[in-house]
């Protein structure tokens, strides 16, 4: 008997994407807000695909660093864009996994037939970051606001102390360990014996690959200039091993420290968006289908007490997704492993190659094995472009979809993105 309880699903198509050039913190976009950047990115996408006044099924996006006033960031950006004001939107946040997770959410609704089209995006600024008042001052201000008489107000004001006026600065640190993400990555790099030179090599390759892609016009229909910036300003086409070798380590301690400002991503501002749809919707609008989002998987690790590295969750997500799709790690034409740190990419690949780790931690009979490095981040990744946390997923999805489309039908691409909080998102695209 046929299983009629399971709804028929379809694979969501990736039609295309848009992002603004990424800018190192406090440079070109120092005065731009998350909403400014996301709105401009949506408008660029609208222009590329002629969606003026169109209502798409849903817009899903998010930011990792967010002001309290931006509680409805995505919806507000939609209202400021040229999309129809009747386009629904919601915010999500899964740290650096935000952009890819947004794409997965949109794709799933399309797969279920709940929407025909949608936009997934992400945006982050570390230039226009929110500052919070300390908890002591916050309590005083709330009681001041609640005070009904002048006397109560004066009493509340009298509780303010100079020390309370120092704001809480946002920090790129894990709340439960107090360690910066880079310091966590350095621990993992040491565990997996990742050398300085191989990290620098990966970084140099990222810059060279991305510069070459820009030169050949690969990003012409993926990037729209913003505030005078036409390319990512972190990109160093002339990057070289010699130059990188001169840098002092910034994460990790002592002799064995290997992680520098060049083989780690800088704080970055930027936004990205991806247009997804059913094949029918795309055909009806005369829009291309670059690839389909086939499957995705998240995982999380216990980096607090469980002894696993903070950024190692994608390592765990991968075998689950591969098994579900009957694929091996080698069955792909392109690999996009987010370069949060060069050492993260290298630790991730080393873990998949390690028989003991794969058996003990992943419960596999055999290791996932190695991947062909010539298929890895072939048009550069976050070390070159920079990494505005929530915007990275959209950058990767749109670029990979275009790479697969250029390579022809039936090509497969793999995405792996690590995220704060010990989380990870992986996904498969296919042209």
């Amino acid at each position: 008997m046929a299983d009629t309880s399971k709804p028929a699903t379809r694979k969501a198509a990736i039609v295309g994407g848009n992002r603004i050039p990424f800018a190192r913190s406090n440079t070109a976009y120092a005065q731009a807000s998350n909403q400014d950047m996301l709105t401009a990115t949506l408008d660029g996408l609208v222009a590329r695909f002629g969606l003026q006044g169109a209502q798409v099924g849903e817009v899903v996006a998010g930011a990792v660093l967010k002001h309290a006033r931006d509680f409805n960031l995505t919806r507000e950006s939609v209202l400021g864009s040229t999309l129809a004001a009747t386009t629904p939107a919601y915010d999500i946040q899964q740290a650096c996994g935000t952009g890819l997770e947004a794409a997965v959410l949109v794709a799933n609704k399309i797969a279920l037939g709940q929407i025909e089209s949608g936009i997934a995006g992400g945006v982050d600024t570390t230039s226009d970051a929110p500052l919070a008042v300390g908890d002591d001052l916050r309590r005083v201000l709330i009681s001041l606001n609640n005070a009904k008489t002048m006397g109560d107000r004066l009493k509340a004001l009298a509780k303010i102390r100079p020390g309370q006026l120092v704001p809480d600065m946002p920090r790129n640190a894990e709340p439960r360990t107090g360690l910066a993400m880079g310091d966590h990555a350095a621990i993992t790099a040491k565990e997996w014996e990742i050398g300085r030179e191989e990290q620098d090599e990966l970084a140099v390759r990222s810059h060279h690959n991305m510069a070459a892609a820009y030169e050949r016009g690969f990003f012409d229909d993926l990037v729209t200039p913003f505030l005078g910036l036409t390319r990512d300003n972190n990109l160093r086409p002339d990057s070289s091993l010699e130059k990188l070798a001169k840098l002092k380590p910034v994460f990790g301690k002592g002799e064995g420290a290997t992680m520098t400002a060049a083989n780690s991503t800088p704080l970055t501002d930027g936004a990205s968006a991806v247009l997804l749809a059913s094949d029918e919707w795309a055909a009806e609008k005369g829009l291309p289908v670059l690839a389909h989002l086939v499957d995705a998987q998240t995982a999380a690790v216990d980096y607090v007490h469980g002894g696993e590295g903070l950024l190692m969750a994608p390592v765990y997500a991968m075998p689950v997704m591969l098994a579900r799709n009957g694929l091996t790690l080698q069955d792909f034409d392109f690999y996009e492993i987010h370069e949060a740190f060069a050492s993260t990419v290298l630790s991730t690949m080393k873990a998949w190659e390690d028989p003991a780790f794969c058996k003990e931690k992943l419960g596999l009979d055999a290791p996932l094995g190695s991947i062909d490095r010539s298929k890895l981040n072939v048009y550069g990744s976050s070390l070159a472009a920079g990494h505005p946390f929530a915007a990275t997923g959209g950058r990767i999805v749109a670029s990979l979809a275009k790479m697969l489309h250029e390579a022809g039908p039936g090509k497969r691409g793999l995405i792996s993105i690590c995220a704060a909080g010990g989380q990870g998102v992986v996904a498969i695209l296919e042209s």
Partner: protein
Amino acid sequence: MADWYTNFANSGVGTTLTKQLGLPRPGVLRRYEPGGPLLDGPAVVGSAGQGRLRDTVTAVLRDAGVTVLSPVVADGDAAGEKLGAVVLDATGVSGPADLAAAHDFLAPAIKRLRSNGRVVILTDPPAEAESPAQAAARQAVDGLTRSIGKELRDGSTANAIYVPEGAEAGVAGPLAFFLSGRSAYVDGQGVTLSAADVPAGQDAEKPLAGKVAVVTGAARGIGASIADVMARDGAHVVAVDIPAAGDSLAAVANRIGGTALQLDITAPDAAQRLVEHLRERHGGVDVIVHNAGITRDKLLVNMDAARWNSVMAVNLQAQLDITQALLDGDVLNPGARVVCVSSQSGIAGNRGQTNYAASKAGVIGMVRAWAPAFAERGATINAVAPGFIVTEMTAKMPFGTREVGARLNSLQQGGLPVDVAETIAWLSQPTSAGVNGQTVRVCGQSLLGA
């Protein structure tokens, strides 16, 4: 309005001052507005010789709701109703003697022409005349039209249409253009028609409805204005510009409900990428406007190869390559229109612009040479040659140079980007099928290169 002097000359104090000082008195040009009348007053239609187009002309006017009056015969009958247009059918001239009738008709009629009036003279191409006398009479129309253009004031224009035997069906579109506000800054020009399958009519408000139009260099200036006008006339505009101009390009596309295509037209694969884009997204293309252009001015003796080569690559080679790729890729829809932007510099030459003028003259040669091949597939290829057009670029010119440049024409003012755009949009219309291989100057009858 960008032209401060025209505004001033038409103000209360300005009118008095400019009159007393004998300064130029540019009129405020009547420009096309959707839904507006073809003319602001009645028209008269006359003939010199036994012309064959009088009925056609009268029909065009009546179809547009214009009252057609009988020819004004009495000399100096200036008391009658002011005229919106004077149209002379001179297709019947067989020799200079027939031109007396032209004078007899035009003189009293033009005396009654109102501001922003129109004079249009139709005759056959001199080259196809049966005798030297007939050729002389037809060629005389050229000098007549240009001189009337120079005598007219207050925004009025005079233009000629040369209609060979068999091309009569193509008269309506060009005639309507020269009568309308679309041709506000086209003055003293002649357009030679050729025989073609011309559709009987088109949507008056949206003549480009359902058409896909590519506009290169659309991010700003004249290109953005072309995109605006094409979209207003009903076209879906594919706005193309270099990736570095992508943000303003997106703004243009979003303003007009078009799409943005970031593409450096000089890239080796640019033509192929454009063809693939048009095929994939639109299944073909109806209109392509080669507007993208750059200047790299230097006196020839001081000009380096980079300046020369970059101007040639953008202004001429890219137009050739893309047009060829559209032909080869078989993406030009039936009735396709190619409109290339040339320049007054390409006709008159310009000091410091050897590269630019050469490239823009090249464009004129290109459309003339390609016209027969386009005619064979029921398509057309034409050029427009803008004169002094008020843009961000001219705003940066020194005051004196700019003001003198702007006045050296019969309309005594610079044109606006929209004037160039309107001419291009007209050449793109279905009923412009009889206009092919032509270069139409949008220069207010500039003294340069005339």
